[in-house]
């Protein structure tokens, strides 16, 4: 695994169990096949506050940045 990928992996450790559960499923299913660009989008998305991120994942808030749309779609399936 590249160093970039490993750094992003640690950013998936969150304050909310809700997100840990969704991210764990996502990591198992999708993480290894993310291309570099999507990985960068994910890293950017993970800079959000936990509550903001959770709201976007559960659909109660709209996706706030165009570049997150793809990876949010994957998280929503998790």
């Amino acid at each position: 695994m590249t160093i970039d990928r490993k750094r992003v992996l640690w950013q998936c450790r969150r304050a909310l169990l809700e997100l840990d559960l969704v991210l764990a499923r996502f990591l198992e299913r999708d993480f290894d096949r993310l291309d570099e660009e999507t990985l960068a989008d994910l890293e950017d998305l993970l800079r959000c506050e936990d509550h903001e991120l959770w709201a976007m994942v559960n659909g109660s808030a709209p996706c706030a940045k165009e570049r997150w749309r793809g990876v949010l779609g994957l998280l929503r399936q998790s």
Partner: protein
Amino acid sequence: MSVAKRTFDAVIVGAGGAGLRAALQLSEAGLKTAVLTKVFPTRSHTVAAQGGVAASLGNSTEDNWHWHMYDTVKGSDWLGDQDAIEFMCRKANEVVVELEHYGMPFDRTDNGKIYQRPFGGHSQNYGQAPVSRSCAAADRTGHAMLHALYQRNVRANTQFFVEWMALDLIRDADGDVLGVTALEMETGEVCIFHAKATIFATGGAGRIYYSSTNAFINTGDGVGMAARAGIPLEDMEFWQFHPTGVAGAGVLITEGVRGEGGILRNASGERFMERYAPNLKDLASRDVVSRAMTTEINEGRGCGPDKDYVLLDITHLAPETIMKRLPGIREISIQFAGVDPIKEPIPVVPTCHYQMGGIPTNYKGQVVVPKDGEPNSPVAGFYAAGECACASVHGANRLGTNSLLDLLVFGKSAGETVVEDIAVGNLSLKPLPADAADASLARIARLEGQTNGESVHEVGLAMRRTMQKHAGVFRFDGLLKEGVTAILEVAERAQRTEIKDKSKVWNTARVEALELDNLIEVAKATMISAEARKESRGAHVRDDAPDTPEFPNGRNDNEWLKHTLWYRDGNRLDYKPVTLKPLSHDVDPIALAKRTY
């Protein structure tokens, strides 16, 4: 091998509510303060706290700290230390108003005061009627609190070391604490943080259980580090099971839902809490509600195909109330239970939530151990606050909203004590022993060199299953005895964990292996302390210690009104007295009584 060293007046491990509150006290006093944290401060688990923080402000209903103290002592099933409880309840208004001044956006009443709502176990006039004592910022109390504290710390020049994992406590030949070793994740290097004072604020270890409301980060690192350094752990048999975790997922549904009128029902739709707690009903203390739910399930009145959960019903509340006062609940319920709570009740089960025990401290935040016949002798240079510490204000059972209060009051108190100890010259920078980093380096070298070892994931799973099966809501002598053998076997396996990735930079596998070293200490302490305590008290309820006239609720004050101390070395148990005397001589002790709601 030479290890880099950094020097500070104080090093704080943990940037949740407790760590940030302590850091603020130190930095504002002009001390050079380092805060280490595994994740960005505002990603600490305190963010998850939804329900609120307790303070007897009396904004919505009449209230005072004596009533709060009574509720807390009773909630603790008299195992809480009354000096620390008095201290906490008396300080509550001060620390909450302080937070308001730091910019915390509390909900407001129409006349602009902090809005307060009822919460389980909190009452007016010594148990007469529910009281509105919880101060909240919508359902983001913890989040708002951390942000307010973090901003304030940045202003005060607290130095943050983010994505650093503390590994071990450094003690010298006198037993004094001189700092910690820590691993920088970005480089994989180990470094020594040398300081006059070390404060642990590492949060809880709820991940020792299979079913838990806690995020993955709650691995009990501070508690594990303390245990490895020879500090005993206090009252580790007491774990709070939150009544309402979403069945199957663990995600918490806040008690605020019941505060706003939510009702628990069994398979026949009965509001069963009326039978168990006629006065406070669904708002009785958490252990009482969890046990009632477990009894309903065990006696065949659970819901669903396997009759293994009960229902939390808010369908009678106005949808606007749910949206306004409990916004997050709907999304959680839809995502993890597949039901919309406006239309259908939510399936819930009691789920491991909070660690009442921890590193023994006094109300000043000093870590205390038995020494030369004195049960509470301070360890020089060592302090702790928040969920990792045991002050002990929660005793055998914590009341909801008292934990955020605990971390504000004792975070601040630990900070104040350090400032004072440094000012009067009680603390100096003692020279580091030559072997200061050896234990940590040896742990890492062991992982590096391990072959034919055990998978971290598998051992972790075995630990969680063992704890869930043998030390759950209801406890049985035979299961506990088997549990001790089982957990010691798991602990053996934990000494042979192997990671495939031996790289240094951002090696999360290594971090998880090191975390497991801490979790397993907590798990052993819990099982061994629980097996030994032959009574029922608060959250520790044994099948063979039932409610009898001689032992109401199964509690045996003659033999067991005492704190457990577990030492890692030889799994030795010791006990120390509960402080039944309040701090001030003009405050009457809360006399022992049967705990009923």
